[in-house]
């Protein structure tokens, strides 16, 4: 459970970039997962099931914050605001990447973090977020194109992290 908790927390943080909110979302997710354990028929699906609960908890959070708003619209809204923590760290590599992710619309942010951070397949991502695979693919493309533009200079410094893994097979 500790490992699931840290994976959930990492994803929750990459979605909201607010440590306290991420922690609350993860606690809620674990609580709901225990309550609804009977719904999980196949242990293989545990991870995408947990992420789907996390995504629902985030929706619930938005609903509480914006009772009158359309959640789907919120998920597609461009995000302009970075957290104070993000701004402080902006000069560093990690901060620049997190800031670029934080400026993606939530729908794109959720897809790219599940695929790139958690290595979920497209079908697992679709399942977790309750969206069609075609939407996963189109959001992923838009997210990557946006990050490509925003991280153009940052990516050049990648050789510091990973000098030898740039070749494809």
């Amino acid at each position, binding site marked *: *459970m500790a*490992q*699931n908790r840290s994976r959930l*927390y*990492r994803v929750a*943080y*990459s979605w909201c970039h607010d*440590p*306290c909110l*991420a*922690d*609350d979302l993860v*606690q*809620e997710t*674990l*609580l709901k*997962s*225990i*309550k609804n*354990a009977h719904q*999980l028929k196949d*242990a293989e699906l*545990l991870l995408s099931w947990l992420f789907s609960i996390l995504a629902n908890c985030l929706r619930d959070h938005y609903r509480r914050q914006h009772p009158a708003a359309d959640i789907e619209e919120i998920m597609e809204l461009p995000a302009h605001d970075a957290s104070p*923590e993000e701004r402080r760290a902006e000069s560093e*590599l*990690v901060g620049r*990447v*997190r800031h670029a*992710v934080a400026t993606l619309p939530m729908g794109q942010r959720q897809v*790219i*973090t599940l*695929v*790139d*951070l958690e290595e979920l*397949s*497209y079908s697992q991502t679709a399942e977790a977020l309750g969206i069609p695979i075609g939407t996963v*693919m*189109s959001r*992923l*493309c838009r997210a*990557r*194109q946006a*990050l*490509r533009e925003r*991280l153009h200079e*940052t*990516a050049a410094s*990648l050789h510091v*992290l*990973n*000098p*030898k*893994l*740039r*070749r*494809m*097979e």
Partner: protein
Amino acid sequence: MSEPNLSEEHLSAFVDNQLNPADRNRALDAINRDTALQQRVGEYQQIKNLLRHAYQRPPEPLRAAATPPSRAKMMLAATLLLAAGLGMGWLLHGYPRFGATPTGVVIQVSENDPEKWQMALINARSVRNAYGKKHMGIEIVAYGPGLNMFRTGSPATAGMDQATKQGVKLLACGNTMAMTHTTRQELNRAVDVVPAGIVEIMQKQKEGYAYVRP
């Protein structure tokens, strides 16, 4: 679009290894013919690596001591107690059961991060101190970006000789070496090579080793 035969979606799916074999071969053909596509694939892989690096260690919430735990947290604690009482173990599925001693521990190093490497060594030492090397196999398997930790002259070199003297096996992934054109000579001499890091980890788990990823 420089390559009409390969959509952006297919390019992304290629990077994520989500294409079926036929589409993957078609994508490879298109990419091999087009340097712009090659560059794009490289960029998407770099973005993937940057993202993983950026969220390796998300900050933990700093709550003031006076701040009460959230309602969800208190309910979680209560529910966990209840769940433990009812013997509901599904969430712990796959974790070592109390009372059953694993036959060994296999530690995964897949990130190019000296701190994670140090943690792997500390884990190995703790296990050895607790169980003794006669009773417990201890392996550290590096693959992907983690292979850099095994290179001669990497910041991780310091503890390696001592670790192997204490019975810890250091194993490099042969697949990663082939993909990155790394020769045996470029790695620390304390390191052995296995054909595939991930297969080694799975095999050891099958043999009853506990799996740890620091």
